[in-house]
């Protein structure tokens, strides 16, 4: 008895070393590629530096003040909000409808689910190319629309270019979000609907009183994904509009890219990125506070 106990203790000590050994690569890697860049990013955001010259002048918070006074920062902010206002409701309504439809069927459910998910696996560059051509002034969509006597300047009108980008991003993520909704729907016990049915509750009331509240975790996760995505759009405007027309599709990441890698203002770009991260964190925080509910059934 005593012997096995000392053996156990000794064994536990060995596994402590083994455990540390197994996580060591992760720790070392994280220090080099995560912690170190993180701190460096903070430091250079207080400096004026153009990457090439060895001179790094400490300028306090002037980079941050410059960000706040940069008209392109506010244009990007406005464009991001516009994107969100179009994207978030549209993608949530569409994917919820698809999920509700998918839940009703058994036969071919997996077929439809993967069919809708197909768009999710398209590469950013590839689908940007495709939609740029499809939605171009004389593209197929406008050729078809012209039969109805209308043409839409999807990417060439500054008023709607950002909305058009939002629409193609909806195309990409609709299937992905519907599957999250579907998983949420399937976790709602059917007994709730059955007892509501017996009590003569209408489908409409069931939807608002049972489905929507119990889908709260799915709504939460999709909202957070969608908001984070809105702050990170780059490939689509870079490929399709290049930020135009009239800066209507400039985004935060495009600005960061431009400031750092074209204009070589690394310090300024870094402060820009930090401000953007803080804004996106605040958005996520506010959404969590507003939407998140504890559910129990």
């Amino acid at each position, binding site marked *: 008895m005593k012997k096995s106990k000392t053996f156990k203790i000794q064994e*536990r000590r060995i*596994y*402590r*070393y*083994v*455990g*540390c050994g*197994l*996580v060591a*690569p*992760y720790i070392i*890697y*994280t220090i080099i590629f995560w912690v*170190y860049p993180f701190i460096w990013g903070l430091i*250079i955001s207080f400096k004026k530096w153009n*990457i090439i010259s060895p001179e790094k002048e400490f300028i306090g918070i002037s980079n941050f003040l410059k960000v706040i006074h940069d008209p392109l920062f506010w244009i990007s902010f406005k464009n991001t909000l516009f994107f969100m206002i179009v994207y978030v409701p549209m993608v949530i309504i569409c994917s919820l409808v*698809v999920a509700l*439809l998918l839940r*009703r*069927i058994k036969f071919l459910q997996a077929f*439809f689910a*993967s069919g809708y*998910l*197909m768009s*999710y*696996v*398209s*590469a*950013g*560059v*590839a*689908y940007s*190319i*495709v939609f740029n*051509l499809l939605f171009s002034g*004389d*593209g*197929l969509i406008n*050729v078809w629309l012209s039969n109805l006597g209308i043409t839409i300047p999807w990417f060439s009108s500054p008023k709607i270019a950002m909305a058009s980008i939002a629409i193609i991003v909806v195309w990409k993520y*609709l299937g*992905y979000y519907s*599957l*999250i*909704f579907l*998983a*949420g729907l399937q976790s709602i016990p059917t007994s709730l609907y059955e007892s509501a049915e017996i009590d003569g509750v209408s489908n409409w009331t069931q939807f608002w009183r049972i489905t929507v509240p119990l889908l709260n975790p*799915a709504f*939460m996760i999709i909202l957070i994904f969608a908001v984070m995505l809105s*702050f*990170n759009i780059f*490939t689509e405007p*870079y*490929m399709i509009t290049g930020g135009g027309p009239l800066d209507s599709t400039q985004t935060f*990441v495009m600005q*960061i890219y431009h400031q750092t890698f074209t204009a070589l203002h*690394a310090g300024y770009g870094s402060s820009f*990125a930090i401000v*953007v*991260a803080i804004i996106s*964190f605040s958005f996520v925080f506010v959404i969590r506070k507003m939407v998140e509910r504890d559910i129990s059934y």
Partner: protein
Amino acid sequence: MIIQNMFNKKQSELSGLVITYAFLGFGLIFMVFPYVWMLLASFKIPAEIYNRFLPTQFTLEHYRMLFSLGATGSTNPFVRSIFNSLVVSSIATISVVFFGAITGYALARIVFPGRTLLNNFILFQMLFPTVLFLIPRFLLMLELGWINTFQGMFSPFMISAWAIFLFTQFFKTVPQELIDAARLDGCSELKIVFKIMLPLSKSVTIIVAIFTFMGMWDEFLWYLIVTKDYNLMPLSVLLGLFTRGEYSSYPGIQTAGATLLTLPILVLFFVFRKFFTEGISMTGLKG
């Protein structure tokens, strides 16, 4: 009377089902349409790309052009770029699975000092947007001299907090008896991870691998920043740059390139579609 009611109910249920399928099918056409158009356009003659959906004649000209047009200083950057994409994506995928598994195993099954702290740190890490790391990581690559190298492209993606998190969650469910028995047999801990834990968590392993591979294959911004040499560029960046540059007025070549970029992932998707849907439902339930 009751039978009549039941019959009516059955009938309305049936018509409801028909409507459901009709809507789903109609929506599916919209979802698949861009793919079909892309594939068809890549074989169309230029005059038919914009204004006809179905082609009257097929041509392989765009693919031929894509593979033969040489950029400055190289004869065939597109063939090379496919190879580059494959190398970079594969290395990152193997690394993410390997380190994800061993770290996840330690975090799930071994008691060691700092374990809870690390578990929390991994969750904390996932909250940070990549945009925050773009510039300092680029500077790190400059410092290491890794601009325009393969390691420059994949090094920031070699260990993923998300993968570690998934592995940790799944490894918690493996019965302790199996681990104890393997240890009694003299198995090393690494052997336990790769001979017992991974085979028992096949679906998570596949999910981590395919999502990582897809993410690396599609990655654009990071490659755009760290590669300057056409011969080293992955397909996504090379196609992106050529579409904005030399090929901007050649929609046929653009769609041929887009098809090339899409096809491998699409094949992966069709082979592993069950794991794609499973992986997404998992993120949804994680809450």
